[in-house]
């Protein structure tokens, strides 16, 4: 497939990248390219300038901060996330879920930042950011700011990252002693696109639940972490999920309740 004519630049630093991204109205950051290159083929996206972030070493690190929190560079791939000892120690759910994204080749290229910034409602990482209390750090030419998941995810394919800005890292608090994470999903085939995804984190008997695939952004629900309260809280959230060839809206509402409890149950096992 021949793409529309496009300009290309390969910055070596974040400073260069934000300067390039600010230089044109229609500049796009190219992360793993596992979504963007495909939508460019179909002409759904036709940016004038691609700013390739793949050679910016400062975005490729996973490290542990002073309080044990995980600091994940925006260009860390799913494969690197899966293999990271720091992730395994601080927040293993991220690796457990990343290993179910698409396939080996996509995991070798696809990135954490790309997953979050594309914010497709079926993406795996947005619900996890919402339950784990992650924060996203965004750079522009002038400033750096950090936002929580509630403010970061704004709509379908829409985040707090505005033109001229870029996501540089994600900070995820380490799991506390009596805390646990869970994940449950029903997908189109093994490791396929989600029909409904649910992430959950349990802390001191309370569950924070984020439901993906049912709205433009993850729907967050809180409840006591038990088998009655969790489905009830999800039912009370009056979800208005899409109705399509893969599942009716009613079935998605049903799945959301069932999967929420499964995710919370896993989180409780982890917390015990």
């Amino acid at each position, binding site marked *: 497939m021949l793409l529309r004519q496009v300009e*290309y*630049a390969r910055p070596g630093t974040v400073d260069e990248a934000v300067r390039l991204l600010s230089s044109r109205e229609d500049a796009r950051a190219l992360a793993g390219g*596992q979504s963007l290159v495909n939508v460019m083929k179909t002409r759904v996206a036709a940016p004038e300038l691609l700013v390739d972030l793949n050679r910016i070493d400062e975005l490729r690190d996973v490290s542990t901060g002073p309080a044990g929190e995980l600091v994940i560079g925006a260009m860390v791939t799913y494969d690197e996330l899966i293999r990271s000892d720091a992730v395994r120690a601080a927040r293993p759910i991220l690796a457990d879920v990343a290993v179910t994204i698409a396939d080996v080749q*996509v995991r070798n290229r696809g990135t954490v930042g790309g997953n979050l910034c594309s914010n497709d409602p079926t993406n795996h990482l947005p619900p996890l950011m919402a339950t784990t209390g992650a924060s996203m750090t965004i750079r522009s030419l002038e400033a750096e700011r950090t936002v929580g998941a509630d403010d970061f995810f704004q709509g379908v394919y829409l985040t707090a990252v505005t033109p001229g800005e870029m996501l540089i890292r994600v900070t995820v608090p380490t799991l506390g002693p009596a805390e646990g994470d869970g994940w449950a999903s029903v997908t189109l085939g093994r490791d396929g696109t989600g029909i409904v995804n649910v992430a959950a984190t349990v802390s001191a008997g309370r569950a924070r639940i984020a439901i993906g695939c049912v709205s433009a952004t993850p729907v967050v629900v809180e409840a006591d972490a038990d088998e009655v309260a969790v489905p009830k809280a999800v039912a009370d959230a009056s979800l208005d999920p899409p109705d399509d060839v893969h599942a009716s809206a009613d079935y998605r509402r049903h799945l959301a309740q069932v999967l929420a409890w499964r995710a919370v149950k896993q989180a409780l096992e982890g917390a015990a």
Partner: protein
Amino acid sequence: MPEPVTEQTIRVTINGEVYEQEVEARKLLVHFIRDVVDLTGTHVGCDTGNCGACTVLMDGKTVKSCMLLAVQADGSTITTVEGLAGADGELTPLQKAFSASHALQCGYCTPGMLLSATYLLEQNRHPSEEEIRRGIQGNICRCTGYVNIVEAIKTAAEGA
């Protein structure tokens, strides 16, 4: 700061040979490999990133070459299906196992399957059937000949 360009000279090592060539920024890696370097073993199947027929090894990891720009491969080392066999044409144990197990019908998916399976066995010398199936998840065989493909990978792993 690097200036935006629509064409760039890239240097890529493919199967041990260095290719230096000016390419358009919009050219996909798979087209560079097939049309410029003339290695047509790497196939274009779906062109949507689903089928894996265009899989190559880039710096040791499998990637779908239809989802990368050729300019992104600048400086990298790539192995295509043509680069698997030895210089004397001796097939790898995996290729021999594909032949022995009749792990292909039309053969269109075979180059991608071989690279994914090569990568799998590099990562995990003795994969279970489940691990093999997940290892080739990004490669679609439209003849649905998976049973023999899995069998061949198992045979190659047992011989390793």
